[in-house]
């Protein structure tokens, strides 16, 4: 599965991979993408071996850009890089395409009947060598195959979604997502970072007020999901509810021990978001300094 049996030159799909410090994954990832004749890695100045590894692949172009925010980086990858092909597949270093998926994509984009500007698909999350189906709320549809000029990313702190001008088709096949391929420590650090970003986003949302009933019942599923997410920023005890939702309502317990740990870790991430929102809104830092100063000047 890691090396594709498809030969380049006949494929109208370019691929872009956004990276930062992905030395553990990038080589496998690039071998997996060998079906395409136009692979670009957009790297946020990794401090590890990632750029060197990428440069050792002759069929891959390396481009580097300083990471400012996720949506700017992603929009750059869509609009500022010249691709050889009309279609672009957006890939992460910890994701792998199955041969069936590649085959399906090729037949879709070469079909003269098709009118879509983007395709969405589902993925399988792996942990401890197993597909964590329920605990990851399968199926989640995400847009990965696009005509880059028809798409841009929304302006948000993190977890940005693409917005498509045109119609969206669906693919049947899956890609494989290995959340822990860089090790657990990396996962913790990454989610520590993401939770900080989510908290900044949440503080902004909370200042604007609770989403209205109408916003929650919009037709567009992306916009609806966003409204529900915004509502969740007003919830007390997100970590607890996320665990209940993921482990019990979504049947995460069917995934065994790996499912339990996955739910617990996601719930930990939700807790970090909530506590970081409080940190900012209550201005804990200022109180800490003032209290400490008082105790130093106290006369005993």
């Amino acid at each position, binding site marked *: 599965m890691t090396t594709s049996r498809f030969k380049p030159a006949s494929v109208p799909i370019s691929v872009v991979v956004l990276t930062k410090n992905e030395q553990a994954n990038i080589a496998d990832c690039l071998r997996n993408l060998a079906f395409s004749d136009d692979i670009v890695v957009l790297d946020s100045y990794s401090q590890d071996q990632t750029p060197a590894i990428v440069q050792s692949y002759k069929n891959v172009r390396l481009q580097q850009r300083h990471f400012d925010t996720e949506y700017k980086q992603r929009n750059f990858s869509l609009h500022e890089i010249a691709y050889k092909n009309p279609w672009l597949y957006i890939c992460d270093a910890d994701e792998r395409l199955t041969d069936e998926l590649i085959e399906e994509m090729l037949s879709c984009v070469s079909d003269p009947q098709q009118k879509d500007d983007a395709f969405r698909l589902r993925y399988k999350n792996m942990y401890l060598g197993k597909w964590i189906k329920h605990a990851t709320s399968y199926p989640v549809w995400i847009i990965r195959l696009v005509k880059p000029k028809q798409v841009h990313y929304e302006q948000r702190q993190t977890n940005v979604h693409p917005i498509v001008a045109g119609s969206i088709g669906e693919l049947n096949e899956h890609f494989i997502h290995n959340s822990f391929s860089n090790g657990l420590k990396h996962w913790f650090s990454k989610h520590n970072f993401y939770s900080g970003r989510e908290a900044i986003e949440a503080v902004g949302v909370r200042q604007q007020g609770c989403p209205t009933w109408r916003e929650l019942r919009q037709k567009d599923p992306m916009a609806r999901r966003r409204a529900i997410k915004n509502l969740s920023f007003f919830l007390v005890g997100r970590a607890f509810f996320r665990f209940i939702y993921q482990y019990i309502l979504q049947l995460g317990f069917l995934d065994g021990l790996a499912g339990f740990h996955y739910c617990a870790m996601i719930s930990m991430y939700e807790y970090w978001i909530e506590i*970081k929102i409080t940190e900012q809104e209550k201005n804990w830092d200022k109180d800490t*300094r003032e*209290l*400490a100063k008082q105790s130093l000047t106290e006369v005993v």
Partner: protein
Amino acid sequence: MSGAAHKDILVNKVISKDELANGLTSQTSKTVNKPMIEVLILTFNEAIHIAETVENALQLGPVFVLDSASTDGTQALAKQAGATVVEHQWEGYAKQKNWGLDHLSWRGKWLFILDADERVTSALRDELLKIVASTNKQHDGYFVNRLMFFMGKAIRHGGLYPSWNLRFFKRGSARYEDRLVHEHMICQGSTGYLKHEMIHIRCENLSQYIQKHIQYADLESDQWINQKYHGAKETPASYLFKKQLRLRQWLRRRIWPKLFGRPIWRFAFMYFVRLGFLDGRVGFHLAILMAQYEYMIGLLYFQKIQDIQNSHLSQNKAASSPA
């Protein structure tokens, strides 16, 4: 304290000329047993704290800042505030502190070890100076209590207070045990407890605090792996503390890693047994964060065991397959 024990602890010093110019000790410099206190502060990128810390520590006596190549101007700030700054490459908490104890040009008899985010209160300062000047029987080392300020509150429960650390001692009578993280000081000699406390100001934001937990969890799980596979020995608890604390350390280091459901136990212990709930919401958050820290250690430990077993499997496969 006996002279023999003293000699055992002092290590041979090998020092270059450059280092001498840097304020390091020489073999010829004689120890002047003046009644004064010197302070050792370890730093790495502590620019936000260091000026205040040095200023505060100078009230005790001469201050040495042992810095591991900070990139944020810590060294210049420390010098400006009046400290002697020495740079030494980072080798781990315990090793770095022990290096400082062995190699800096100490002149007096008493040492106080301070972290960059800690301060000495005026009451503690007076108590320390009194002990040094006293002609009565002195202990060789003293435990200092520490009050933490975090999340906008003084934390007085949850097992985080009182927090006794051996920080004040006669030079040569104490060293850090060799452990990857959460190392303790071992004092060969008599120890006492100080009445007044120092304070610990945690100015870091939660992302930094959690990142520290991730870092420590990684090191702690490495320590467990070392003990399981490489026969690394923990310092016998009997060296570490006074009697009443030995049981606790034995439980923590020998029994605890084998227990099931550690995060829950950790939470229950902090929040209920050690009355963390009396600190209000902050007490709850601290107990949860601690339980998560425990959970991360467990997950990392499990992953590392699996990695080791997998690599053994593949090695065995490679060995048994025909060439």
